């Protein structure tokens, strides 16, 4: 501090009354913030996919949701099978590294014979990223150089074009995506929802800022001082967060860098389960509807910690001094 003394009056002026904690249970977070008919984003690109939240939405039997995600993954396949979804907005619907999402495929391939049709709205990854970027910036659309020479605009009328006022170039546009609620998983947050992520960031930041309500689900609740010690790692500030849920292993069978690895057996296993509607129903009964919460779900998977707990690769840290 080079001998300069902090002025106590200035310090006191900068200090506010501690705000009430936003930490609530997953049950209460979903009950309060996810409503029938909502547009819901549970993001996370392979990394940090909040299965715990998806399962709670299934348990609370939410209906007519518009589910948006770049990669629907197992979690949206389960929510589609459970009857939560009216519509799916996406850019890559597969079981990454393992096969297909068969509940999704059945809902789409059997149209229109299947009465419970699932409406789809399809983009590419860049298109979905751009939609969330527009949403986060509260712009009506986002321009991108994409889709020329492809059939995507022919099947999705929301992919349009605009003429650049500066160059005259025709650019593709996608509309803003502003979800009613976005749920992101993260390694840690404080009780106000100041949230830190490391490893693959996906579109967690854009999805959170684009949303009207944000639920953050974390592996660990930490003191505000832990956040303040490394502010560059914060991707979502607490003031846009409605609720913080502390749910260790809440992203299983996806992963949390530095906490646990992806449970690839579950992804490979979903191929056979999802092929058979009866097996999906029985999976949902035992692993989702038949358990009250995440702790009970984890009890169905003994040995997870030994099998998947992350090895230690701690970074050196940096000097934030001045």
């Amino acid at each position: 501090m080079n001998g300069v003394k902090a002025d106590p009056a200035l310090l006191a002026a900068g200090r506010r009354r501690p705000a009430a904690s936003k930490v609530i249970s997953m049950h209460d977070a979903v009950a309060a913030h996810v409503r029938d008919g909502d547009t819901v984003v549970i993001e996370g690109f392979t990394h940090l996919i909040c299965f715990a939240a998806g399962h709670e939405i299934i348990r609370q039997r939410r209906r007519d949701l518009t589910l948006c995600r770049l990669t629907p993954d197992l979690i949206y396949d389960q929510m589609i099978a459970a009857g939560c979804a009216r519509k799916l907005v996406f850019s890559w619907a597969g079981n990454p590294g393992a096969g297909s999402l068969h509940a999704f495929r059945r809902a789409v391939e059997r149209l229109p014979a299947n009465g419970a049709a699932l409406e789809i709205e399809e983009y590419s990854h860049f298109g979905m990223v751009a939609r969330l970027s527009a949403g986060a910036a509260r712009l009506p659309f986002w321009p991108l150089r994409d889709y020329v020479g492809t059939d995507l605009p022919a099947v999705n009328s929301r992919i349009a074009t605009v003429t650049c006022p500066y160059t005259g170039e025709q650019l593709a546009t996608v509309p803003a995506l502003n979800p009613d609620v976005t749920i992101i998983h993260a390694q840690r947050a404080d009780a106000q929802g100041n949230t830190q992520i490391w490893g693959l960031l996906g579109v967690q930041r854009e999805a959170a800022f684009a949303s009207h309500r944000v639920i953050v689900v974390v592996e660990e609740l930490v003191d505000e001082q832990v956040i303040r010690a490394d502010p560059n790692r914060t991707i979502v500030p607490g003031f846009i967060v409605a609720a913080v849920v502390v749910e260790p292993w809440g992203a299983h069978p996806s992963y949390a860098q530095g906490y646990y690895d992806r449970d690839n057996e579950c992804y490979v296993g979903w191929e056979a389960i999802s092929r058979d509607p009866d097996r999906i129903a029985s999976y949902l009964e035992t692993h989702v509807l038949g358990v009250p919460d995440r702790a009970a779900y984890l009890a169905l998977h003994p040995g997870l910690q030994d099998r998947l707990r992350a090895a230690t690769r701690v970074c050196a840290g940096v000097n934030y001094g001045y």
Partner: protein
Amino acid sequence: MMAAVAARELRDGEVVFVGIGLPNLACNLARATHAPGLVLIYESGAIGAIPERLPLSIGDPSLVTGALMVCGMADVFQCMLQNGRIEVGFLGAAQVDRWGNINTTVVGPYRHPTIRLPGSGGAAEIATHARRTLVIAKLSRRAFPESVDFVTSPGHVYRGVRRARPSLPGAGPVKVITDRAVLEPDPASGELILAALYPGVTVDDVARDIGWSLRSCERLTTVEPPTATDLRLLRERLDPGHQFLKADR
């Protein structure tokens, strides 16, 4: 064989947008042999990844550990891909047509598909922006129709119009690497023609499995088989469980 052939297309120091499976194997084979300075970029945001295990998905945590940079996906698509920084893009394909158009969306009509495939992911923009695109697909009549059921990613000619800047900055699919031959676009028309045959394969063997009347380029060559080193690296070090190599027979 496809992984080894694809690896040769990569030059040391190039920036490559990598897909999972055979493209990943090809890149890591190139890195272990002639191109140690290859920069691997995954759409998940891992830049300069040096995976210590075979990544099972494009978002594998091993892509992060030891990478040069990790960024959000908005940065990947805007600052890397659309910015023109990607020299080589790798794509798989369920169908490739006469004009190099790629389908990974549906077999059959879009609204009532026989088979619903995963869709674009990042493929549409990779084929748009990568300076050159390499496609890997096994040869079969179903996979190489005269025209694809759905154009997910742009090839060389779409509804009679040649690809052109500024809308399509990259060169598009410059090579289609199959399990028996390599196809390349005819510079004059953009039509895919036979450029090279694997050892022991005849023109007829290939033409039989192509849905249009396949022309050969004037200087048809033979693909060099993988070296013993290539095979040892692929089978013993890069994919010892043959997780992805089983698709490369």
